[in-house]
């Protein structure tokens, strides 16, 4: 009997609860219609590819900086599982449901994200693409590093420190990731065209998404091709994974090594000359411009369709120059923990 009563009591609570919701949602929908005349804070969703890489922390810092300067509210939210296309689509859809004023997106896939972006546009939500390319033209602006140029830069640096000849690895990042594919392509094209002395031992091996997987791959490659003299890795996790493998094998500093992106450990390695170069993007600028461009558009200002945030090469020699230093260690502590 007691149990029966409890169930009934529970049901009663539920009904009251639902009734309350009904009232509240009525009121708030009226309220949102009425706010047209008032000064409005824009709500902008920023969707990265993942949330744990330091690179994305820097992007977040830029976005927050812009948000503070421009007085808008941002939501920072990536797919729950890093690099999961399907989940990034979900996140995007959920923000469309939330009816945010604009979305800044770093698409995980140049193709799979096209349709959800179309849907956002259909609902009247402008989308700015950052970092990686998206097929079609149904977006406001594309703000990214010229990744191909970054690859070219890395190839030239590696050739320079190796004297234009020797055996090298190209460690790829992840199948289907557009930005790194461009870097890899830029590197590959430059090596084959400009440096016939460089011989590619490996060019089709993927490091995968984690430091661990990159570490294992490099370890395996090193034992398979002990004659290697130079390595290029196209992003932070693969660079760090490869670096760890070289350090473990006692080869760090002996094998020439050019990486991409920056982190505290990589900066230390650069200082110790275990790295001969790091190609740097400007993720802070990317995040900043992403939000800024969107707000400009919302305020009726004209925006450019393609914005390059530039690439810079950091070497053990130039790493203490202030402008390089700020790229190596962007001061993001002000904005993110």
């Amino acid at each position, binding site marked *: 009997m007691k149990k029966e009563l409890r169930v009934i009591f529970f049901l009663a609570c539920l009904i009251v609860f639902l009734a309350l919701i009904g009232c509240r949602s009525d009121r708030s929908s009226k309220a949102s219609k009425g706010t047209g005349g008032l000064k409005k804070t824009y709500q902008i969703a920023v969707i990265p590819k993942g949330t744990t890489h330091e690179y994305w922390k820097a992007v977040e810092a830029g976005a927050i900086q812009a948000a503070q300067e421009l007085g808008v509210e941002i939501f*920072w939210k990536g797919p729950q599982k890093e690099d999961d296309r*399907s989940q990034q689509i*979900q996140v995007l*859809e959920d*923000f469309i*449901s*939330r009816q945010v004023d604009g979305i800044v997106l770093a698409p995980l896939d140049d193709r799979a994200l096209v349709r959800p972006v179309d849907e956002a546009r259909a609902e009247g939500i402008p989308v700015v693409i950052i970092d990686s390319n998206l097929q079609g033209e149904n977006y406001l602006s594309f703000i990214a590093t010229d990744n191909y140029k970054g690859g070219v830069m890395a190839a030239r640096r590696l050739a320079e420190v190796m004297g234009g000849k020797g055996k090298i690895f190209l460690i790829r990042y992840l199948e289907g990731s557009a930005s790194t594919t461009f870097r890899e392509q830029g590197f590959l094209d430059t090596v084959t065209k400009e440096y016939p002395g460089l011989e590619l031992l490996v060019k089709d091996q993927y490091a995968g998404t984690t430091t661990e997987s990159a570490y294992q791959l490099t370890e395996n490659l090193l034992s398979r091709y002990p004659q290697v003299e130079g390595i290029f890795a196209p992003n932070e996790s693969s660079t760090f994974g490869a670096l760890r493998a070289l350090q473990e094998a006692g080869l760090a500093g002996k094998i020439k090594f050019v990486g991409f992106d920056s982190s505290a450990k990589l900066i230390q390695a650069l200082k110790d000359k275990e790295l001969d170069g790091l190609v740097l993007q400007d993720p802070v600028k990317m995040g900043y411009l992403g939000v800024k461009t969107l707000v400009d558009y919302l305020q009726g200002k004209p925006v450019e369709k393609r914005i390059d945030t530039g690439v810079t090469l950091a070497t053990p020699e130039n790493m203490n120059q202030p402008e390089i230093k700020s790229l190596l260690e962007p001061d993001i502590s002000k904005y993110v923990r």
Partner: protein
Amino acid sequence: MKITAGYSRLKKLTNLLGPFIGLILVISIFSLMPEVSGRFLRLANLTSVATQSVIVALSALGMTLIIISGGIDLSAASNLALSCVLVAYSINLGLSPLLAALIGLVAGGLIGLANGLLITRLRLVPFIVTLGMMGIARGIAKWVARNQKIDAPLTWLNDLMVRTPHPSWLLLSPGIWLMIFLSIIMAVVLKKTVFGRRVVAIGSNELTARLCGIRTDRIKIIVYTISGLFCGLAGVMEFSRLTVGDPTVAMGLELDIIAAVVIGGGSLSGGEGSISGTLIGVFIMAFLRNGCTMMGWPNYFQEIIIGAIIIIAVALDRLRHRQD
């Protein structure tokens, strides 16, 4: 105090009510959040959540059957990815979209059949067989896709999972209708057919089932094959949504699928579980994801919440059993 028939019926009701109340609670909490109230319960958002649930729900229908039979299928998500890749691959070969979808479906069924045969013929534990199959199916998927995603031209297949269906009289996307339709079919199969009762019997006590003349091996093979077909179908839906064949899709999704069944009252030792419970489990997780994203809450938050819900659901389940 005597347990009357009416009392036991009430108890049955509360068994399903538990997860259902959980679902209502999740929905209510988000609807009350001032930031998203009014938007959360918007029809557009509800259909969006429903669309997002289709893939997990379809695989979970098959998984429910397997878990009730006392087994488990860890290869579900890999199976789904393989099907997704095969559909894209087949379309690129110039096959008609319908045929491509069928190939995805059949591939899923074959993986399931292989699971069933290995489990019954070699007398291996389902956990081990499907753990192995998880790697095999994922590997084949990557092999077929040559380690990258496969772009395929857009076809009507890609309209199955849109948020707003093209002939607008459909109201919901074809994927959602398919999910509803198949759920009803599976619920009827489980509750109202001899096959369904036999599956429950096997999960409850396999030896008894054998004693009652049930050909347990045959039933198990059928169960795994059906589940494989559902994964194949989920793969077709995944392709529809992604518009590309992605061999790395749904990594770890098998755990979400299993969690949905468990939240809905399925017991990993077999004999218990229901389709309605599983669907509620799927929706609890989908609404949580959706709500957390709309609130702009960080990912770790929603991971913790979902983890806690799984434990709470199972703990409540135990509590109910102790009261019996």
